[in-house]
């Protein structure tokens, strides 16, 4: 198992307008392995998108990555890179695709140009070769009649096609790591199935590591090797997918599972989590979930660290210390 990316103790902070700083990403650690998909799961406001932006140092100002964080790509310290060296990582070794293809694609350039732009930025390549490679990429992502499509503009394509184009652009740099931030949320369910199929196929053929950010447990079940659940800026549970689904242990994870409607199995009333997610900066002290937790532990006023539940399965909850569930 080759570890391609190692994130350790990542903190991202923003000024809160009153002089103090808020940390929407507060001590996140995980690693990405070649050929594997890690799913980062959580609801809005948990910090998952910011985490992915931080990897590529794209945190919007006035936010910043706090000192003490570590992002290592192989033996390269990503946080220490500047200028040209950073540019050589972005798009070339780590690529990213976003949720909304309409705003992520430049409306005034055609598809072919947007793909070849990446190639020209990172490789020395002739224009003809670049165009050939671009057509091949479009073919690989499943766009029919790729040569003709090179001249198309984003607004002429459907949502599913645009997302495929975005994947093609991401692959143009031949990255080792692909970060997909809610890649199918804006798409119809049948198109979603197509796109996920494409991502899987490409991950295999290109041997990439994939960081999949989503709120949809259904997608996670089918496509991820490992899952990390985020809440209030922290990872609250992490395990291989099968393990997590068989034995969700953190009360928040259990709450999520209880909230998800299912198509098969017995029809039961949904049991949602009480209350709302508190905004960053207004998290409770100690365990951040304790104000909504149905089984609040007596130690919850102290923030729990990640504790072992079973082999290769950790959660941030004092209940882990009480023995197997």
């Amino acid at each position, binding site marked *: 198992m080759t570890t391609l990316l190692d994130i350790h103790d990542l903190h991202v902070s923003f000024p809160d307008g009153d002089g103090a700083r808020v940390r929407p990403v507060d001590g996140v650690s995980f690693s990405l392995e070649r050929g594997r998909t890690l799913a980062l799961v959580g609801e809005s406001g948990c910090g998952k998108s910011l985490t992915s932006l931080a990897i590529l140092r794209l945190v919007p100002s006035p936010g910043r990555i706090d000192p003490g964080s570590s992002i290592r790509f192989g033996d390269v310290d990503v946080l220490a890179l500047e200028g040209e060296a950073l540019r050589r990582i972005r798009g070339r070794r780590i690529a990213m695709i976003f949720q909304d293809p309409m705003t992520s694609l430049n409306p005034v350039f055609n598809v072919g140009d947007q793909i070849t732009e990446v190639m020209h930025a990172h490789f020395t390549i002739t224009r003809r070769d670049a165009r050939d490679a671009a057509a091949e990429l479009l073919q690989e992502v499943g766009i029919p009649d790729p040569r003709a499509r090179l001249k198309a503009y984003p607004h002429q394509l459907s949502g599913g096609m645009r997302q495929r184009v975005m994947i093609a652009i991401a692959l143009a740099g031949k990255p080792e790591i692909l970060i997909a931030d809610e890649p199918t949320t804006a798409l119809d369910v049948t198109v979603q199935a197509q796109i996920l199929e494409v991502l899987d196929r490409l991950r295999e053929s290109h041997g990439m590591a994939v960081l999949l950010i989503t709120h949809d*447990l259904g997608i996670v079940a089918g496509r991820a090797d490992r899952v990390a659940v985020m809440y209030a800026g922290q990872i609250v549970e992490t395990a291989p997918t099968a393990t997590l689904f068989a034995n969700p242990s953190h009360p928040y994870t259990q709450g999520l599972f209880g909230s998800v409607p299912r198509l098969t199995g017995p029809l039961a009333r949904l049991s949602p989590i009480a209350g709302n997610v508190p905004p960053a900066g207004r998290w409770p002290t100690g365990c951040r979930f304790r104000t909504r937790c149905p089984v609040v532990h007596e130690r919850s006023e102290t923030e729990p660290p990640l504790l072992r539940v079973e082999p290769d399965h950790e959660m941030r909850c004092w209940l882990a210390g009480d023995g197997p569930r």
Partner: protein
Amino acid sequence: MSVPHAASAPLLQVSDLVKHYKAEGLFAAKAPPVKAVDGVALAVARGETLALVGESGCGKSTVGRTIIRLQEPTAGRVIFDGHDVFALAREPLRALRRRMQIVFQDPYSSLNPRMTVGDAVAEGIEIHRLAPTRLERNARVAALLEEVGLDASYARRYPHEFSGGQRQRIGIARALAVEPSFIVCDEPVSALDVSVQAQVINLLKDLQERRGLSYLFIAHDLAVVRQIAHRIAVMYLGRIVETGPAEVLLSDPRHPYTQALLSAVPEPDPTRRRARIVLAGDPPSPTNPPPGCPFHTRCFHPLRDERCRREVPALRPVHGTLAACHYAETSAIASTLGADVV
């Protein structure tokens, strides 16, 4: 979910509903119209939820808005509790509006940012003069807010102070204020986080039971629909392609599109592998629907043939549902949802 007793005639009866939009742009005169809704018929009984499902562009939102005449139809008839909705004059229509309400998808644009929550909820009360004094109006507003799970003190605050889920509840309270018997729920939970979604679904169900409401529940997520619908109608390119009782339709769908739709829904269960049907191509656009069966260009049914290209199939009873497919007797897929297929 068991179907509630059908008490005589249905509350809502829609027949041959058509809504075409004129094309826009420079060459609009020559361009074909957008056939958003192209002949839809449905009925909703008292106390029942009919779910209208489909993907983007299928016309389901348009159906919802046209039924309550937020938009004028191109053709068709809607009978609501004996009244011919499209034939009503302004005043009788306004009076009827009390009975049929709507809840919108986007919690961020469905509330006037310049009105307090209390004013928003009270609007219907004011329009229809349901509370003679200010005191009574405020009391009603407070009761409604509590009924949807919000604190009565929220009435003085503004929408921007609330989360998406809370805003949806406010929207529901606003609709309930006029005491409707029928509510069009236009993708009410699609924009919400999973745990909030569950809260709102439960709220809608509780309200239905408590107040005897009927819903036209418009959605694209079949798993959500299963939670709340008694019957389901599946739309594709402006037409209904299959309809029937929820459990039947979900366990033994007969129209190939319904089968594909079900197969595409990701199940949160890594051990369950089922036949994954991945449709080729993109949904055709409503400006240029294919002739004959609207689905035939992407259909994978083994018996698909010339007839599908020429003749629009009618909805007819097949194995427990009504399906608009010439060959629905033979299922397009070998196994259905429950089987384990690698």
